């Protein structure tokens, strides 16, 4: 079901083969290769300007690639214009036609396909029912709330049974609670219809919670392609480690390799970390450890620990507590540590000296740049 990134298989719905796109002197996309499986939900995640929208526009055909090829359902589409690609697209600002009613907006794609009126009316009604907008047929887009407009845009893209659904930051204009419910709803509909979907966002929470696979992009390249768990637990490089989720970066020194694990010295303490990315390093080469806030254990200062410090801030988050811990000695580095349960507030009061231990084999490590 999940094809590899580098080869096009029979389950591949959309395939970008070493696609390059330049704008004047800016390389917006640099030899990007990406396969999206049929019925798969793939998210493009990356900082602003990394080329997400550009990749989506290439798939849609609003732009043509400068190099490489793009296929949809095994057919090369480089030279096929947007309107013959059979895609469905949802835009950040919805792009609902302001001069048409809700029903006419949804019917637009069916009219271009010359669907007979009776059939068309039925499909429009079904699509509006699917997004829970019955009874709004005759309103104009400006008479709808943001969330309702969003649903019309979704219905309009779905009603034509697209081969691929492309979404460019569709939820970024919604408030948080509405966004969460739309995320759930979209994912449900996508699963039910088995729609191949490429979704663009720069919100990593959205990416991790919705996707089958996430492609993390930066500067026109895909840095890592993997399941949300892969991307979160085993980032492929320092960029992915610091971009996806909260992370603490700690500078250490390489000591030795033991089987698949590496030993890294952090001050006086030794830490065991996954070693694949460190193979071939010389002794005492600089190493960056990336440790997630929840991969620390906070302990009493006299217990065995990796780093000593004191609590400088407590941020109560409801289910858990975020502690900022200033390391003793050194340049006053601060660690973000996540401690489950509310007792932490009382147990580690402000100013209290604490020890911090890294959970065995949990963090990721890369040779320092």
């Amino acid at each position: 079901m999940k094809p590899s990134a580098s080869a096009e298989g029979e389950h591949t719905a959309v395939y970008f083969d070493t696609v390059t796109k330049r704008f004047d002197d800016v390389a917006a996309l640099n030899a990007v290769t990406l396969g999206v499986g049929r019925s798969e939900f793939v998210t493009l995640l990356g900082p602003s300007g990394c080329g997400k929208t550009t990749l989506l526009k290439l798939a849609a055909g609003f732009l043509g690639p400068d190099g490489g090829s793009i296929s949809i359902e095994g057919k090369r589409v480089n030279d096929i214009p947007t309107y013959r690609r059979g895609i469905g697209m949802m835009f950040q600002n919805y792009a609902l036609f302001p001069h048409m009613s809700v029903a006419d907006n949804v019917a637009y794609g069916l009219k271009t396909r010359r669907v007979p009126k009776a059939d068309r009316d039925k499909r429009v009604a079904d699509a509006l029912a699917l997004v829970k907008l019955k009874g709004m047929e005759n309103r104009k887009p400006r008479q709808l709330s943001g969330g309702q407009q969003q649903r019309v845009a979704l219905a309009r893209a779905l009603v034509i049974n697209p081969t691929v659904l492309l979404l460019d930051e569709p939820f970024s204009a919604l408030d948080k609670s509405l966004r969460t419910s739309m995320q759930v709803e979209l994912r449900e509909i996508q699963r039910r219809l088995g729609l191949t979907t490429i979704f663009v966002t720069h919100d990593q929470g959205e990416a991790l919670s919705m996707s089958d696979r996430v492609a993390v992009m930066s500067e026109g390249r895909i840095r890592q392609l993997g399941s949300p768990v892969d991307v979160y637990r085993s980032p492929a490089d320092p960029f992915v480690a610091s971009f996806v989720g909260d992370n603490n970066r700690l500078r250490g020194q390489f000591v030795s390799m033991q089987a698949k694990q590496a030993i890294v010295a952090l001050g006086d303490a030794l830490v065991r970390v996954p070693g694949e990315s460190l193979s071939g390093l010389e002794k005492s080469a600089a190493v960056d450890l990336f440790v997630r806030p929840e991969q620390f254990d906070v302990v009493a200062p006299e217990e065995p620990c990796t780093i000593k410090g004191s609590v400088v801030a407590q941020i109560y988050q409801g289910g858990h507590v975020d502690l900022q811990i200033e390391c003793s000695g050194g340049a006053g580095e601060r660690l973000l540590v996540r401690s489950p349960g509310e007792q932490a507030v009382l147990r580690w009061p402000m100013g209290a000296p604490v020890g911090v231990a890294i959970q065995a084999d949990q963090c990721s490590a890369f040779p320092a740049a």
Partner: protein
Amino acid sequence: MNQQPFLRIFTAPATLCAVGFIAAMVAVLQYSLRAYVPGSLDPGGFTLANFADLLKPLYARVFLDTVVVCAMTAVVTLIVGYPLAYALVRVEQPILRSILLVIVVTPLFLGEVVRTYAWIIVLGNNGFINSLLLSLGLIGKPLQLMFTPFGVVVALVHVTLPVMVIMLAAGLSHIDRDYSRAAESLGAGPIRVFLTVTLPLSLPGVVAGTTTAFAWTFSAFATPQLIGGGRVNMISNLVYQLGFSSFNFPFAATLCVAGLALTALVLGLLQLASRPLRKIEVH
């Protein structure tokens, strides 16, 4: 894939128009290099004599007068137009704003003839101003306002004022009011705010407005013709006379070419002079 649908169909008519217009300008240029054959509508052979004739005092004088009238009109229009543009942009009540806008814009679309005619009635010996001043006993005999450079400039200011106001207002409206609010909050009085913030930021609009006012005045025909009455002659009047009274189209064309060169020179100088200003353009 055809990424540029309609490119050819949509460019063709415009290209045709551009070619037609260029052809008309080339026709003028070509005529300016032809000899005048008295009594004939067709020009003679190629010659540079027309351009040499430009240096005759009679014609040099008209050029000078034209530039002086245009420059005076542009400056006066700027001074008179600025407060109005400022008011147009800053007035808050929608109704007042609309009224002001219609008052400013309507003359723009009235055409030169109607407006010039109105000024004849205002400035004439039996006209409004003289009648008013006479009945108030302020003057003994009518003032000579018609057929004077003063009258021509007043009427031309009226003709160019709307376009100046619109260009100034366009410049002023894009200045964020927060700049002046910020200056006010720093303790600057209204005059200081105006001189140190609003005025410098509106300079691009000032340059655009002055440029256009100059070009429009240069183009004016009916106003100098009817209000100048032959005593204030501008290039436009001379071109028409040469063409339709003596059928000397070659020399008329020469005057047009020289006029174009002069406009280009003045507009170029204005652009050059305003180059340092562009640094402070907003956004």
